[in-house]
């Protein structure tokens, strides 16, 4: 019953899926102690950030049916909020609070504007406009270098408790505390999103996605719902950005605003399964880990293929992007409904 309230009555609806989700949850919970090394911790933290970012995008894409390329803009705003505040005000909790609040406010205004504009033009145009808009925003961020650090970005410090130099006990340092801060944030934000999509509001969004015209006809003001949805998803993305900045203690245009990040998000949504929210967890887990270790893997493969120069050239770690591209193509081929969709179709076992 507790669980059911937490999950908003939206169960994984597949036993395998439930097991995988639980495994990811546990793995993320114990990473700092179970897997040694800086790299593993960094990967796990990135997974946490991506879960929130991707889930927030799923609200927009999977549930409302809006294809926006400007989502990373809000992600960037969140990260810049923390970065700029921490640079200007010095490291401290108040900088985090002020930075996040300002970022949320800016995101709110921009999302409102975009949401209202989206109604004037057809969906596909809207996507292209957001694409251009996001590109312009990125350039703007690098041009306002006095403020944003330009292309070079900003490096800043965190409150002492969250810094690597802080040591609580022998094994627990500031990095680990910072990790658990992210972990808690990610869990809370994820459950909140799950609740939103399963609320009456969430259902209306689905209706709009399916047939906007009819949704309006039965009495739902599509403008309002669309706008609220894009604002909500923007706010969650902003928080994801803040999480990333807290973890990296760095932010720059390429880190949060680049189109590459947007692509990663799109890919993760699709791999995981659109319109499921759970897909964000699976997708992020799979993708971030794959991305982080892809080059290592390719190195092994190309060494193995060293006898065949052509194959070795293709498998070279330098060409890791090639394989990411292949991943894009294959995931559309083989996971049209994402991992979650696949698993649910396999065995509709109820974990009730």
């Amino acid at each position, binding site marked *: 019953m507790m669980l059911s*309230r937490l999950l*908003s*009555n939206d169960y994984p609806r597949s036993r395998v899926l439930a097991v995988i989700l639980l495994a990811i949850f546990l793995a993320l919970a114990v990473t700092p102690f179970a897997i040694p090394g800086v790299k593993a911790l960094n990967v796990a933290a990135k997974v946490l950030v991506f879960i929130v970012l991707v889930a927030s995008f799923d609200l927009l894409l999977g549930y409302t049916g809006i294809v926006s390329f400007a989502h990373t803009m809000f992600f960037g705003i969140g990260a810049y909020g923390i970065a700029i505040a921490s640079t200007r005000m010095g490291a401290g909790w108040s900088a985090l609070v002020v930075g996040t609040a300002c970022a949320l406010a800016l995101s709110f205004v921009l999302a409102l504007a975009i949401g209202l504009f989206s109604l004037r033009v057809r969906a596909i145009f809207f996507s292209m406009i957001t694409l251009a808009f996001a590109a312009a925003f990125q350039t703007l961020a690098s041009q306002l270098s006095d403020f944003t650090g330009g292309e070079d970005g900003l490096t800043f410090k965190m409150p002492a408790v969250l810094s690597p130099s802080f040591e609580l006990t022998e094994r627990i340092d500031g990095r680990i505390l910072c990790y658990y801060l992210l972990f808690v944030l990610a869990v809370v934000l994820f459950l909140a999103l799950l*609740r*939103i999509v*399963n*609320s*009456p*509001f*969430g*259902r*209306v969004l*689905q*209706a709009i996605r*399916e*047939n906007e*015209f*009819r*949704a*309006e*006809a*039965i*009495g*739902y*003001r*599509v*403008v*309002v*719902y669309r706008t*609220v949805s894009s604002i*909500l998803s923007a706010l969650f993305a902003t928080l994801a950005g803040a999480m990333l900045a807290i973890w990296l203690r760095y932010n720059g245009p390429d880190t949060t605003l680049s189109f590459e990040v947007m692509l990663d998000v799109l890919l993760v949504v699709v791999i995981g399964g659109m319109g499921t929210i759970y897909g964000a967890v699976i997708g992020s887990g799979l993708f971030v880990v794959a991305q982080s270790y892809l080059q290592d893997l390719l190195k092994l493969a190309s060494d193995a293929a060293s006898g065949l120069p052509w194959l070795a050239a293709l498998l070279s770690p330098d060409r890791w992007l090639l394989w990411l591209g292949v991943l894009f193509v294959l995931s559309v081929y083989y996971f049209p409904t994402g991992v979650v969709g696949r698993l649910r179709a396999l065995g509709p076992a109820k974990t009730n």
Partner: protein
Amino acid sequence: MSLLATENLTIRFGGHVAVNGVTCSFEPGTLTAIVGPNGAGKTTYFNLISGQLKASAGRVTLGGRDLSNEPPSQRTRAGLGRAFQLTNLFPRLSVLENVRLAVQATQARTGLNLWSVWSDHRDLLQRADAILQSVAMKDKEHELVANLPHGDQRKLEVALLMALEPQVYMFDEPTAGMNHAEAPVILDLIRKLKADRSKTILLVEHKMDVVRELADRIIVLHNGTLVADGDPATVIASPIVQEAYLGVSAKEGA
């Protein structure tokens, strides 16, 4: 009890006047059939009333309230319900969810409720169940709408309108493409509504036997203009209907 009225309602598409200065009002408790040849402007007239199209001129009022500048959703909330001629549903949601969405739309604020869990709203579920019973579709409640045959989609179209519980019901050829075994379900529903005597019902229908049986009043549109209005027997007998619509005299003459 409110009265639906249109005053001088007109719409032009380029040079073509699809609905031309139609002034008419509809009393609660009556079923008015709207007939006319294909392209006469019947669906367009509905579109103007329910707000899918914006009138070039004229007003739509319900119980004295001017709705002319309201978007469709607000008109629906004000009490204008509408079923579509071409089926228009939420294809990748289940039958039950389709109806539940319509039921939810009648609730004042639930739509923007972000924080409660949908499946906890028992009241919505019960209403939706009752409606599905009434159109004999309870057994298909978990099917995806996209997989339903045409006839069932038509029934669901009507079920959504029922779920809205409006003051004015607008049916646009509700039984088109339904066979004689299925159509009675829909016609029964309309009869029941009519028996209620408090609802305003508008019905576009080409099947004259249905019109004869159900209608209290018939209005005839021709080239966008209202050309006849009155009790069924008189209107059907009028030469304009016989010729332009039923094509009778032309046939008989030949």
